[in-house]
């Protein structure tokens, strides 16, 4: 499968060894077993951490990582996307560890070392019921005594986490992050399976004790930055999923016969394939171009990522729906990877708000550009 951007030797090795490992250890036939309970994913995690040693790929060398960057996350998530197993990597490494890296302290360094060796899985709990996709609309309260009260909505990978990083407002109204251990006093947890087979949890806190994280003031800019990075990483994952769906669909239309001929011989089929291909190419190119824009100031970065997600959402819908349509009834079943890929693409399409939300971010950016200085 074509990489998203030209890989250096280390990245090429990383991706090919991960793809091989996933083919051997997590083929589609075994995927359901890895998702039966939140804990069933452990063999995947152990493999990523110990057999492949790639959980530290993008972490600093000081904590036992390999000193990589967001680009490595994209390389890894493209491959995990091809196996439809992005979680808990995406939630724990891109978002969780991404946050911890920007909250430097002895304690967070120790946590990151744990992330690299697979023992620690940090997960951000930020969005709340009724807040939709707004990281700033937070009613959860961080009390003066360090305890936490409030509610978080459908936190991805929360059931698999060892540490929750919970956003909350202090008495002054400043948005902060506090660290909570699953099972701590006052926690109510409801594990929820998502439409793509992965796991999330509804969480409620009632005077739950927290462990402090370094004080960086208002954490909203940090949350937005990490959310942008996670969104781009999801775009890379989407490319992996779409590549698989297109490959499987090409195989299927060549062998499926109706009216005495392969359905690949019909122009309506061919045009749909061409549209899938073009959707995939545009998403792939824009994910690569957006990676190069990630070091720009927040407004420019946000515009680039929002633009990328608009295209990814659009491409995900085109490729996902077309793959199901061209597979006919077989695309509707849980027996083929197609249906699962479509489920995953559908969640990606609406990730962090989907097309409508991200398009409005671009609208706001344009308004800013044309506003008189």
């Amino acid at each position, binding site marked *: 499968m074509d990489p998203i951007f030209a890989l250096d030797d280390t990245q090429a090795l990383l991706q090919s060894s991960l793809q091989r490992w996933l083919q051997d250890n997590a083929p589609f036939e075994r995927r359901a077993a890895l998702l039966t309970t939140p804990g069933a994913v452990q063999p995947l995690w152990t493999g990523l951490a110990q057999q492949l040693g790639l959980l530290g790929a993008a972490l600093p060398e000081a904590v036992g990582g390999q000193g990589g960057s967001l680009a490595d996350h994209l390389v890894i998530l493209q491959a995990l996307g091809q196996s439809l197993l992005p979680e808990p990597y995406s939630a724990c490494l891109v978002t969780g560890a991404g946050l911890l890296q920007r909250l430097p302290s002895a304690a967070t360094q120790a946590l990151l070392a744990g992330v690299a060796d697979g023992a620690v899985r940090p997960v951000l709990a930020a969005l709340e019921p009724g807040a939709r996709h707004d990281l700033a609309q937070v009613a959860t309260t961080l009390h003066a005594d360090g305890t936490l009260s409030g509610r978080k909505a459908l936190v991805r990978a929360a059931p698999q986490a060892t540490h929750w990083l919970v956003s909350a407002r202090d008495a002054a109204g400043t948005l902060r992050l506090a660290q909570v251990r699953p099972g701590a006093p006052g926690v109510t947890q409801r594990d929820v399976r998502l439409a793509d087979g992965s796991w999330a949890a509804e969480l409620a806190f009632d005077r739950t004790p927290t462990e402090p994280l370094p004080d960086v003031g208002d954490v909203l800019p940090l949350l937005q930055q990490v959310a942008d990075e996670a969104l781009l990483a999801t775009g890379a994952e989407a490319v992996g999923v779409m590549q698989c769906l297109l490959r499987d669909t*090409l195989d299927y239309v060549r062998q499926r016969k109706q009216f005495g001929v392969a359905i690949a011989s019909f122009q309506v089929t061919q045009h749909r394939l061409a549209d899938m291909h073009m959707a995939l190419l545009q998403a792939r190119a824009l994910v690569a171009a957006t990676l190069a824009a990630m070091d720009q100031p927040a407004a420019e970065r946000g515009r680039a990522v929002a633009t990328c997600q608009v295209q990814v959402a659009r491409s995900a819908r085109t490729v996902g729906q077309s793959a199901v349509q061209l597979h006919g009834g077989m695309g509707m079943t849980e027996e083929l990877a197609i249906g699962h890929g479509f489920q995953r693409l559908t969640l990606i399409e609406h990730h962090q708000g989907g097309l409508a939300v991200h398009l409005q971010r671009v609208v706001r950016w344009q308004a800013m550009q044309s506003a008189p200085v």
Partner: protein
Amino acid sequence: MTTLTPADTAFRDEVRQFLATSLTPAMRLAGRRTAGIFTDAPDSRPWFRALAARGWSVPHWPVEWGGTGWTARQHDIFASECAAAHAPALAPQGVRMVAPVVLAYGTPEQKQRWLPAIRNGDDYWCQGYSEPGSGSDLASLQCRAVRDGDHYVINGTKIWTTHAQWANRIFCLVRTSTTGKPQQGISFLLFDMDLPGITVRPIISISGDHELNQVFFDDVRVPASALLGQENQGWTIAKYLLVHERGGTYTPALRARLLRMQAMATAAFASRPADDAERQAVATGLADAQCRVDALHALEQQVLADRIRGVDHPVAPNVGKLLGTELRQHLTELAVTIAGPYAAARLPAGEAGAHALALPEDALWAMGTYLNDRAASIYAGTNEVQRNLIAQHLLAAH
């Protein structure tokens, strides 16, 4: 979207400096008023000659024939700056259509004969491919060329011949054999437009513009040296152009159009309330268009960078044509919406403002470009044919 390197910034400034001195107000006006696909030849040729004088008229050609050897980013910067400055839209028949096949299939004498005159702007080319009965099914073409001593004698007709009224040269697909498959009896000829027996009939488009023509050949005698490649090899040569990306990109012009449309929208809604529903819908439409332009831009840059390092993607030209033309058409729809009531008026662009009761010229441009751009999904291989070609590649390759 990415920031420019210091070297790229210096190059951009060099281009801007050149544009500031060489792209005259008259040329910019002609570019702005181009509602068709390409600027009329009388208006575009002074600009082409200025580019030639600077050594920038054929940037994608091999360096030994006058190409610039630019990086993908430099090509992008150059095209973007030209488009943003409303430089005339140059017709591609010479530089980007016939020249690449002359380079690939021409004899040394043919290269020497045709290429320098394309580069310096002396020659203006038109393309004789389609016929009244041969559009998407181009291989069924009937225009005959019969060998007679040192000449070919041509009888038949070509249609949709862009800018034939200004061209002094034509490259033609002609039938030289009727045996075997239709594709096997086609030859590729290059010859002069002023030969006896050639007549040009104008075709006025639905926007009122004259870009297209029908060309008739009545016992036209062209020298045998007009033949490019071998006799009956014409289909292979024509296909070469389809599978080799020649560096043409859509997004620089699309981005310039988008900027123009943003300015149009600002002016159009200046006296409307901020919460005007149409205004908000237009703002969303413009943001959406920008996202699409960004996506295609990323793809075009990727393809161009790969081509420069020697990696050709087999259906990249087809993908580029499809996405570029569909996006172009989409922008024109949006432009008509932004233009509002005045889009309904039809006047020559130069007359819009020349009255005590002036009409907004951009509104006229919007409708003209909308009407003209319906051709974008038809010309150069319909978008249906492009989808067929892409799918055939996908089904064969995997």
